[in-house]
C-alpha cells in the first residue's frame, strides 16, 4: 500500500504542487493586494474561499482518479496487492492533499490574526477559534471520506458489470441510494432539512453585508454531538460502501471488453 501511495504521489507531484502553488499565490495576492477597488469585499472573500474549495475539489478528484486507475490499468491491477490496499492508497492520497490544504488554511488564519488584524479577510477568521478549526477539520475530513468512498463504489460497480447502460444505471442508482439514505436518516433521527448530518454540522454561509457579519462558520460544540445517532448512521453506511467496494473488486471487477 505504501509503495502504491509513493508511486501515486510520484506520478502526480508536479500537478499537485502546481495546484498548491496557485492556491498560495492567490492567497498571497489577496493578502497583500486585495482588489477592493475592482470587486466588493465579499467578492474578495469569495475569491479566497474559492481558492481553497477549488484545491479541495482537485484533491478529491485526484483521489477518485487514483482509485479509477487501480481498476482500469493493467499496471495497477496485476500488482500483488489486496483490494483494500488500493482503496487505502487512494484514500490516503486524497487525505494527504486535504491535510496540506488544511495546514495552509491554518497558517493563513494565524497570519491574518497575528500580522494583519485589520485585513478584510481577518474579519472572516476572527470568530473562529482553534477548537472550531479542529472541529471543522474533522467534519471536513469525514465529508471528504464519505463523498469519495461512495464514488469508489460507483466506479467499482461500473467496472463490475458489462450490460449496455451500466454507467447510466450506476449514476441513477447512486443518486437514488444517497437520496434514500438521506431520507431514511431524516425519518429515523428527525432531522429537519435534507442532506447529510455531517454536512449540516459544517455550515458555511457566505453573505454580503457591510460589516461582513453575514459570513459565519460553525462546528460541533461537543463530543456528544459527534456521537449522535445520525453521525453513527452515516459512518455505518460509509463502512458498508467500503465493504461492498472491496467485494466487487475481489469478485466482479474486470476489464471491460
Amino acid at each position: 500500500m505504501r509503495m502504491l501511495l509513493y508511486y501515486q504521489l510520484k506520478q502526480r507531484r508536479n500537478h499537485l504542487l502546481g495546484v498548491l502553488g496557485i492556491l498560495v499565490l492567490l492567497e498571497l495576492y489577496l493578502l497583500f493586494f486585495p482588489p477592493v477597488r475592482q470587486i466588493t469585499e465579499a467578492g474578495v472573500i469569495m475569491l479566497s474561499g474559492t481558492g481553497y474549495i477549488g484545491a479541495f475539489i482537485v484533491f478529491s478528484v485526484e483521489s477518485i482518479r487514483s482509485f479509477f486507475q487501480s481498476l482500469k490499468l493493467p499496471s495497477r491491477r496485476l500488482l500483488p496487492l489486496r483490494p483494500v490496499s488500493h482503496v487505502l492508497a487512494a484514500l490516503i492520497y486524497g487525505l494527504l492533499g486535504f491535510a496540506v490544504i488544511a495546514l495552509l488554511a491554518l497558517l493563513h488564519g494565524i497570519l491574518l490574526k497575528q500580522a494583519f488584524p485589520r485585513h478584510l479577510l481577518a474579519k472572516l477568521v476572527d470568530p473562529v477559534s482553534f477548537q472550531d478549526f479542529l472541529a471543522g477539520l474533522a467534519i471536513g475530513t469525514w465529508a471528504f471520506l464519505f463523498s469519495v468512498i461512495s464514488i469508489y463504489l460507483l466506479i467499482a460497480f461500473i467496472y463490475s458489470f458489462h450490460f449496455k447502460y451500466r454507467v447510466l444505471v450506476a449514476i441513477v442508482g447512486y443518486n437514488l441510494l444517497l437520496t434514500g439514505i438521506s431520507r431514511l436518516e431524516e425519518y429515523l433521527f428527525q432531522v429537519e432539512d435534507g442532506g447529510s448530518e455531517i454536512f449540516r454540522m459544517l455550515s458555511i454561509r457566505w453573505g454580503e453585508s457591510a460589516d461582513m457579519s453575514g459570513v459565519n462558520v460553525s462546528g460541533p460544540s461537543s463530543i456528544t454531538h459527534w456521537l449522535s445517532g445520525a453521525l453513527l448512521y452515516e459512518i455505518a453506511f460509509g463502512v458498508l460502501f467500503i465493504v461492498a467496494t472491496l467485494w466487487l473488486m475481489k469478485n466482479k471487477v474486470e476489464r471491460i471488453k
Partner: protein
Amino acid sequence: MSLLELANVTKRYKGTRGLNGVSLSLDPGKIVGLLGPNGSGKTTLMSLIAGLAHPDSGTIKVQGVPVGLATRSLVSFLPDQPLTEPWMKVEDAVAYYADFFADFDREKARELLSFMKLLPSDPVTALSKGMSERLQLTLALSRRVPLYLLDEPIGGVDPVARGKILDAIVEQYSEDSTLVVSTHLVRDIERIFDEVILIQEGKIVLQQEVEDLRLSGVGVEETFREVFAE
C-alpha cells in the same frame, strides 16, 4: 501436478461466449502457442488465468492454487494493453516492477533493455510501437515465475522488431518455466513452439506437441489453416 489446470471454464461477454467449457492442462518447461483467429477467445483465456477477469463457471489453478492474489507471484502476464503508465520513463517502469514484485530480476531487465536497444532515460510515450512492445516484453520476462503469458507480443510490429522480440523470448526462456504465447501470426512464430493449442469460438479444438505434428507430416501453419479454413 500440472503447472496450469483449467476445468470446464466458461466466460460470457454481453450474451456471447468468450470461452465455452474450456478444460486444459499444461506441464512445466514448454513454450506453448495459443493460436486462433481474432475473437476466438485467446485474450479472454489469458485474462482469466492472470486474474484480470473472473470465470462465470469452472476453476482455474496455477500450481494447484486457485487464481487470485496468491497466483500473482506465479504468473507474469503481458496483456494487450501497456504494462507501463504514460508518466514513466523506461527506468521508472523497471523500478516500478522491481519495487512491487520480489521476483523481478533487475540484472535480467538491464540485459534485456540493452538487447532491445532501449535507453533507460526514454519516456515511454516517446517510444514507437515496436519499441514499446519490446519494453513491455522486457518487463514481463524480467520476472522469475513458473508461468509467463504473452498476449500477441508481436502483433502490430514490423518484421525486424518481430525477429528481435522472438529472439528475446527464446534467449530469456528458462526451461523450468512455461511460456504461453498467443498469436494469429503463426508463420512468424511457429519455430519457437513445443506445443500448440488451437482455439476457435471459445473452445479448444486441438492441443498437441509440435513434434507430433511434424512427425505426422504437417506443420503448425498447415494445421492452423486446415482447422480455421472457412
